[in-house]
């Protein structure tokens, strides 16, 4: 394992920022630390960088315990949330800063800076000052500056947070591509699940200073193992008394369940039903236009469910009675969360065939 955190504990006064943190990261992976604000993700990043020190536990980078190593000796590149570009230096001098400290010759510096300017698509803009750049450009300069001294590990703190929505989308895919091209092991912090799912090879979910779950974006999306993950990822709704729903009667031990809009299929009366015996009757209570689709709030036996409907399908109306099919739920039994498929669908399937 390339990066390894072992039993890390860290408190700021009474606030427990890291509670028993353990994880490992393979070389060359792009990993997201995902969690709500105050969940301790940035603290982990700063401890890796050597900007904070853990109260106890070990940090290993490339097999070396780096706890007592100062930040500059860890071979790390760090991209700050608000870029932290040196205001009074040109783009060129910003990128060359780390190289000059390494006592590289003028020629080497120039070659490396030119190479990086090309990589970030800002060729010929080396003479500009940070205030003459757009947010996205600044972020790319910050990225180049962190990469310049050839670090082994790249850490990015909320790399897209300060950038407007349109550019952010572009920058995400650009960053993923570029990191793959450079082949550097990278960890980035984010509170945005879409960002983590889209960019990362692997996601580490943090909450209240603890790690909730580690896995690939698909695993985390499909099989959340804790209630927090189930609720945090996707557009999830918490259901308290779901045993009333058809097909889930047997799961009585469990206390809570989480459902996502994509688990719910809504059919208008008269449209063909795939599993006629498994559907519930629901009443459309609210319709909201979401641009690419319509979001419906549906009341099923007093339980509020959310489902989506494509604009291409026959529109439903407020107060209309519809058939609702629930494919699956994430059921939380007090310790772990697991996926439970609709029993009624499984029972009926052979008959239907």
């Amino acid at each position: 394992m390339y990066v390894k955190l072992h039993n890390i504990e860290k408190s700021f006064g009474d606030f427990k920022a890291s509670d028993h943190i353990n994880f490992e990261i393979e070389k060359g992976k792009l990993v997201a630390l995902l969690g709500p604000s105050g969940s301790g993700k940035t603290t982990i990043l700063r401890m890796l960088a050597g900007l904070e020190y853990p109260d106890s536990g070990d940090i290993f980078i490339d097999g070396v315990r780096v706890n007592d190593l100062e930040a500059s000796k860890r071979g790390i590149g760090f991209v700050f949330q608000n870029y932290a570009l040196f205001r009074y230096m040109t783009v060129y001098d910003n990128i060359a800063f780390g190289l000059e400290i390494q006592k590289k010759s003028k020629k080497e510096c120039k070659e490396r800076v030119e190479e990086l300017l090309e990589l970030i698509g800002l060729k010929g803009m080396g003479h500009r000052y940070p205030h003459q750049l757009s947010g996205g450009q600044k972020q790319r300069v910050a990225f180049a500056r962190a990469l310049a001294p050839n670090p082994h590990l790249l850490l990015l703190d909320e790399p897209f947070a300060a950038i407007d929505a349109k550019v952010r989308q572009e920058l995400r895919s650009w960053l993923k591509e570029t990191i793959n091209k450079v082949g550097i092991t990278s960890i980035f912090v984010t509170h945005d699940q879409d960002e983590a799912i889209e960019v990362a090879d692997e996601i580490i979910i943090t909450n209240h200073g603890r790690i909730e779950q580690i896995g690939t974006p698909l695993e985390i999306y499909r099989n959340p193992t804790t209630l927090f993950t189930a609720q945090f990822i996707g557009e999830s709704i918490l259901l308290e008394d779901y045993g009333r729903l058809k097909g889930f009667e047997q799961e009585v031990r469990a206390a809570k369940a989480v459902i996502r809009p994509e688990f719910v299929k809504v059919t208008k009366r008269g449209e063909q039903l795939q599993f006629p015996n498994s559907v519930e009757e629901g009443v459309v209570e609210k319709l909201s236009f979401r641009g690419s689709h319509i979001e419906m709030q549906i009341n099923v036996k007093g339980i509020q469910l959310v489902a989506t409907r494509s604009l291409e399908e026959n529109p439903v109306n407020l107060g209309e009675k519809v058939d609702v099919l629930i494919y699956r739920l994430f059921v939380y039994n007090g310790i772990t969360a697991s996926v439970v498929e609709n029993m009624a669908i499984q029972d009926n399937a052979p008959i239907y065939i």
Partner: protein
Amino acid sequence: MNKTNKKESKLVRNLLILLSIIFLFIMLVMPLVVVLSEALQKGFKLYIDAIQDKYTMKALLLTVEATVFAVIVNTVFGLFAAWSITKYHFKRKRLLTVLIDIPFAISPIIAGLVFILTFGRIGWAKEILDFLDMKIVFAVPGIILGTIFVTFPFISREIIPVLQAQGNDQEEAAAIMGASAFRIFRKVTFPQIKWAFLYGIVLCTARAMGEFGAVSVLSGHLRGKTVTLPLQVEILYSEFNFTAAFAVSSVLVILAIIILIIRNIIEHQMKKAGGNYVRKAS
């Protein structure tokens, strides 16, 4: 209705501007004119003679000396204090910020008395000073000490807000790349605080030159030894030597005007640099 409102507001505007101008004229411009005209009343030669007086020249030198010392000491400690307050977390940080402001709140006379009670004949430090064969009260070190006390907050007060607004990110970024503390200060921090720092020095200089209260208590008025320009003005005035008093005053006024011009140039530069910052943040 709208129109009358506009008319009224225009009237109010002009009235306020006029009042401000009249007030400033009576309170500031007229006295300055009086100083200069009184100084030159008995002819230019007498004016020059008054300035070239042996004791006046000594007083000018002492003022310059005290100012230079005060600015140097306050530059060093002002930087340290501003740095500690903005870059480190520690207990009682707020207390330190309040302590820095004390000279703003305390009358300079009291500052002078404090030093007399500490280092004077009845002071507890008297024996140590005797042992070291040093004299502070009624001597040049006392004057410098008083001036430093009074002007202490100026430089750190100017730098602290700028450093606070910047945060530590840039310094951390430089540190991760292995830059030494001195390099970080020289290349990253100092360019940011440069104008605020110079502005602080100018304010400190202006205040140090004009200091009267604390210095008056600590000086003992030994002519040619412990008399600064403001004290010299007072002595001349109390001797009814008005022409000389005004002549020496005019020297102080001219120095103040020079500093005012420098101050404005720096303020302009600061705004320019600040403008960059605003654009960067947006």
